[in-house]
């Protein structure tokens, strides 16, 4: 059975290769091939899942060793896969949602002449993401890690003719690279500390080294996670990444890739468990990000950017949970899965809206769309309810648990702080999601004819797009509940990420109640602001915070001033230095010799007699020298 694991990756990889190398003759069937292979991968995943369920808890972890990759001295990297419950969860999520989004894209990208390429990239992404989650050592994980980065680069910049898209793609890749430094340093540290970087080896050897090393490794892993999962301070790329086609935003920048950071931290749980400081850092980053993203989400008028902000903050929740240790890992993953469902659903809904609105993204130009696109409205609405954690829906189950765990961080002030933050986040989430909902589907229509004069005619999207949305909607409604039936999900993951029951500082029911209250408050506020009075088409000036939030809380400006400008000056001055200083020294020497020889050649006046004089003088000097030598 474990021999099938490689096939998981092979199928989409094959698809990417075929579609890229196939050339134009595949243009017509390309999307079909891509989708078929995605589904093939999904099928294999399901098969493996069923097989895994059939096994006893102990030997559920499958292992497949393909070949030795980089053998140099003590440095032994293998191409080997490991499929345990954690990986399985991801595989199912990735292949499942991935396949759905392939289907959706068939409709969404129908009129794009580079559709074949798009599907090739999607397959490439699937392959890379699968490698990431089923790798059995950190180096192979790194391959997948960068692979998804590449896929995301290609897909964000898919419409390369738009400079904004190209820039956004580049930015995403670069910021991710900064994170990758963390991952690579972490791997090097593991190698120098444990002599291996395979999950198993690290797991065993963790106990045998000091906490300092482990903290360092943990922080480096956290840096990597920040880059990939758009956590503060490396979150700036996610907003721009929305330049990509919407299915991409749904798959990569909502459901799967951006959650890789969470996977990394959970996967390295043993290290973090042994390094409390690192864990604290993780929790802080998560907490900060979840507020940050939420605030940004409140201010954006671009529907996708608003959703991006919410993604950021939801991942903040997961990271926070992952930082909480054994009490949080399982919930982090659970929220990750449910979030995968409803956020993908939301994005697909947004895509459907844009599809109907001539790719208009400004929510202030929407309004009252529920009449025009009912299916989208319903699915989007369900996703909305799920994400704000409406009791009974998926979001509620997962997020509520995280909040509990946050309160259970310790029985001191920190527990209160983190719990409070989580709670507050829930409220803000409710606020901005309600805002999005109202601005998009309620109120009266606010769209006008665009510059070209053609007024958008909102209409429901084709089946190929609505079906995936419906499926995802189901997921976002029931998944959470299913997982929480006598803690099925937690039990399922426990062998990998051991699980301790959280003991919050206040009783669980109280937390649940307060959560509900808070989200109602948020939703109510949003209703008061956007539901009661009409939404202005041109955004009001807004408070200082609002304006800052519209600009991603000035993070980009900071980057621009400090990094971009500074970098430009640095390089420019260095170019100057290289040309005038480093090169100048050499050229100067050359010039000096030139001048000297120019002077010397004056002596060569061509008169034999003056040459004779020099000869004669030379002889004289020689004699003098010999005499002196004799004298001394």
């Amino acid at each position: 059975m474990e021999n099938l694991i490689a096939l998981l990756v092979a199928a989409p990889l094959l698809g990417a290769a075929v579609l890229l190398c196939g050339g134009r003759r595949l243009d017509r069937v390309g999307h079909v091939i891509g989708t078929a292979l995605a589904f093939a991968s999904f099928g294999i995943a399901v098969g493996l899942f069923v097989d895994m369920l059939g096994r006893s808890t102990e030997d559920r972890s499958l292992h497949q060793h393909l070949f030795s990759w980089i053998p140099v001295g003590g440095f032994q990297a293998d191409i080997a896969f490991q499929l345990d419950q954690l990986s399985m969860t991801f595989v199912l999520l990735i292949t499942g949602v991935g396949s759905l989004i392939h289907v959706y894209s068939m409709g969404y990208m129908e009129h794009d002449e580079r559709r074949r390429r798009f599907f090739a990239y999607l397959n490439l992404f699937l392959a890379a993401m699968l490698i990431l989650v089923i790798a059995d050592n950190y180096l192979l994980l790194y391959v997948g890690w960068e692979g998804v980065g590449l896929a995301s680069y290609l897909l964000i910049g898919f419409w390369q003719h738009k400079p904004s898209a190209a820039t956004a793609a580049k930015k995403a890749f670069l910021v991710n690279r900064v994170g990758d430094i963390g991952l690579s340093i972490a791997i090097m540290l593991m190698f120098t500390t444990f002599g291996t970087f395979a999950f198993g080896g690290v797991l065993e050897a963790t106990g045998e080294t000091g906490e300092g090393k482990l903290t360092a490794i943990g922080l480096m892993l956290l840096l990597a996670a920040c880059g990939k999962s758009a956590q503060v301070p490396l979150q700036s790329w996610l907003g721009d990444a929305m330049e990509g086609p919407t299915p991409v935003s749904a798959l990569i920048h909502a459901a799967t890739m951006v959650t890789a950071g969470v996977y990394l931290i959970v996967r390295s749980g043993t290290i973090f468990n042994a390094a409390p400081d690192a864990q604290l850092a993780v929790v802080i980053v998560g907490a900060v990000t979840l507020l940050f993203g939420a605030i940004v989400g409140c201010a954006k008028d671009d529907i996708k950017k608003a959703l991006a902000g919410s993604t950021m903050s939801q991942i903040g929740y997961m990271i926070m949970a992952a930082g909480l240790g054994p009490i949080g890992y399982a919930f982090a993953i659970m929220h990750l899965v449910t979030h995968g469902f409803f956020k993908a659903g939301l994005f697909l809904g947004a895509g459907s809206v844009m599809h109907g609105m001539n790719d208009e993204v400004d929510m202030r130009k929407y309004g009252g769309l529920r009449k025009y696109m009912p299916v989208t409205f319903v699915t989007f609405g369900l996703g909305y309810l799920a994400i704000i954690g409406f009791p009974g829906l998926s979001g509620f189950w997962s997020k509520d648990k995280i909040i509990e765990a946050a309160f259970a961080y310790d029985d001191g002030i920190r527990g209160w702080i983190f719990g409070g933050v989580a709670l507050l986040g829930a409220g803000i989430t409710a606020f901005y999601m309600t805002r999005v909902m109202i601005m998009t589907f309620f109120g009266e229509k606010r769209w006008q004819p665009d510059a070209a004069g053609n007024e958008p005619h909102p209409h429901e999207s084709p089946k190929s797009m609505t079906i995936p949305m419906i499926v995802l909607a189901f997921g976002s409604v029931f998944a959470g509940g299913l997982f929480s039936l006598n803690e099925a999900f937690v039990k399922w993951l426990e062998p990998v990420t051991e699980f301790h029951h959280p003991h919050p500082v206040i009783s669980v029911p109280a937390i649940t109640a307060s959560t509900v209250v808070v989200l109602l408050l948020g939703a109510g506020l949003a209703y008061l602001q956007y539901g009661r009075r009409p939404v202005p088409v041109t955004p009001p000036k807004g408070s200082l915070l609002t304006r800052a939030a519209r600009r991603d809380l000035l993070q980009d400006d900071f980057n621009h001033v400090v990094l971009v400008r500074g970098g430009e000056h640095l390089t420019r001055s260095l170019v100057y230095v290289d040309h005038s200083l480093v090169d100048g020294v050499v050229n100067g020497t050359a010039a000096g010799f030139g001048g000297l020889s120019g002077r010397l050649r004056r002596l060569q006046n061509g008169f034999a007699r003056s040459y004779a004089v020099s000869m004669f003088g030379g002889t004289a000097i020689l004699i003098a020298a010999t005499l002196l030598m004799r004298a001394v």
Partner: protein
Amino acid sequence: MNPVNYLYLAALLFSIGATGVLIRRNAIVLFMCVELMLNACNLALVAFSRMHGNLDGQIIAFFTMVVAAAEVVVGLAIIVSLFRSRHSASVDDASLMKL
């Protein structure tokens, strides 16, 4: 008196000849100065042969004379043809060594 004086004389003559070579521009006079130097050497050789009491010095002086004769013959011939080509016997006119 000491036969070394001959050597002093030879040195003196040699230096005078050399200076002449450097100063004069007329090729013929130049040659004469060269001859003067050669003769000075001969004198020295002869004196040496007297001091060492063997004839090798004289032999070498003899050869010097012969070579000098040959040299003069060729040299003068060169001067003549030079004079024909450019109506002057000044060596500075032949300052073609400059690039």
